[in-house]
């Protein structure tokens, strides 16, 4: 406060009590960095699962091999007719032949005899949202017509993706709760210490008729200010790291490797995921202000 303004407003009730606590700001900064990164990761995981799971779940891939005198192409044509009669099938397209189809068909469970010397063909089948037939039922229909076929519902892809989202969200919620608890505890400790430091002055102010809010306000402002600085810088640093992961391939590769090692899959980040960071600073400020206010009020009750 400028000297002129101070003279105009009169003496401060609790000089310096509203100045942000540096150590609280530093502690909140470190916690905010973690919390903001976790929020970005959780948002990316949810977005990836939400975007890809329905798309993958709405299609199946059918591998059809030739058998006896029937070529793979002829078997694929027959399979197309069978699939077209199945309930809920929207479209069927025979994919162009590719050398990797043999390996893909084997991975899908098509036996070696069906793929040997007669490259299988892959059919992409999409469903309408209603009356969708299961992959197992489709496979039964095809085998009933003596076709060597395997049907993949992409569960091998959607499973880890959905698991990753669940793990990321659970980890984010857990970590956020821990961080919120720590911010509360730190802000409460800082406010308690600040009141204790000024106990004589606070006691005098109570005697002079100051209300609880008049005394609590600066301590609340002190914690909120420190939290705003710490959370702003911490969340900003997390956003900078996430930005690097989005726009720098080297950083992205490194992060992908770390995340994949931890939870089995790594959703790629998107610029929109950075918006999640903006949630944290107001939460941190609110938590710190509430904790400091409650603690300062409790100290006043003990004094008064």
């Amino acid at each position, binding site marked *: 406060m400028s000297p002129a303004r101070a003279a105009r407003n009169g003496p401060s009730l609790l000089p310096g009590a509203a100045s942000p606590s540096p150590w609280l700001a530093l502690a909140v900064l470190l916690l905010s960095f973690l919390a903001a990164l976790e929020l970005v990761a959780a948002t990316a995981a949810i977005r990836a699962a939400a975007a890809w799971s329905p798309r993958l779940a709405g299609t199946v891939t059918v591998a059809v091999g030739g058998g006896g005198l029937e070529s793979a192409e002829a078997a694929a044509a027959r399979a197309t007719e069978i699939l077209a009669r199945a309930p809920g099938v929207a479209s069927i397209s025979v994919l162009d032949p590719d050398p990797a189809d043999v390996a893909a068909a084997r991975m899908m469970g098509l036996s070696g005899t069906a793929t040997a010397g007669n490259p299988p063909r892959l059919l992409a089948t999409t469903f309408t949202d209603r009356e969708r037939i299961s992959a197992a039922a489709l496979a039964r229909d095809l085998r009933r017509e003596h076709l060597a076929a395997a049907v993949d519902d992409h569960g091998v892809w959607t499973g880890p993706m959905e698991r990753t989202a669940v793990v990321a969200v659970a980890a984010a919620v857990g970590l956020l709760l821990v961080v919120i608890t720590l911010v509360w505890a730190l802000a409460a400790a800082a406010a308690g210490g600040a009141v204790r430091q000024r106990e004589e002055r606070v006691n*005098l102010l109570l005697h*002079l*008729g100051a209300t609880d809010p008049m005394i609590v306000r600066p301590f609340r402002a002190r914690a909120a200010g420190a939290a705003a600085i710490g959370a702003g810088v911490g969340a900003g640093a997390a956003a900078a790291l996430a930005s690097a992961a989005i726009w720098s391939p080297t950083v992205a590769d490194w992060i992908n490797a770390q995340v994949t090692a931890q939870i089995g899959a790594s959703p790629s980040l998107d610029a929109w995921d950075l918006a999640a960071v903006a949630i944290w600073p107001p939460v941190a400020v609110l938590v710190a202000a509430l904790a400091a206010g409650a603690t300062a009020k409790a100290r006043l009750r003990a004094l008064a």
Partner: protein
Amino acid sequence: MSRKPIKAVNKSEASAPPEADVVRLLGAAVRIGAGRRTGPPLSLDLEAGSAHVITAGPGAGKTALLETIALARPPLKGAIELFGKNLARVRPAARHALRRRIGVIFQDLRLIDALSARDNVALAARAAGRSPEEYDKPLVEVLAWVGLTRLADEPASHLDGEGRGRLAVARAVINRPDLLIADEPSGEAVLKLLSDLNEAGTTMLIATRDADLAEQSGAEVTSLVPAP
């Protein structure tokens, strides 16, 4: 040392119309210091505009009693009524309203040495929720009344003992309290100011170990006899 005694105003002479007792002690006993010692139970009525002197030796619980009346601590036994309200029934959040009706001159004065005389008094006005526009004029008047106009911008630490006493009185009266509590007031100037205040109708409760002062004051005197 010559001193002007506090002149207690006869209740019928008081300019303010009589109202409910300002302070009423009903067998109130207080905890002395931080230990388990309890002061003797005390009953007294302090009517508006009157003065009452409580006298006792050191450690008898005078300060504890005044602090209890000033809502700094709860009574251990009995009841205390302030402005017709039983303190036991006053919510903690509502205590400030009663405190604003009380001016306190502490035994150790509790001035803030780093602040100027003017700001020490202004602090009391601010704590009572008044804006500078509201208290600027009364502040100048009260500093003039206690004789500190010339020293208004001096830090409290630069004032001598008498000046600090005058400043403590100024701070206690800036909010025009209905009750003035003085714990061991001393010095001719301070006693003269208290006498003038009482003559003007301010209700006053004074604690002193000085039996002569109590005798000369003309006020009702209660002696605290330490509990065995």
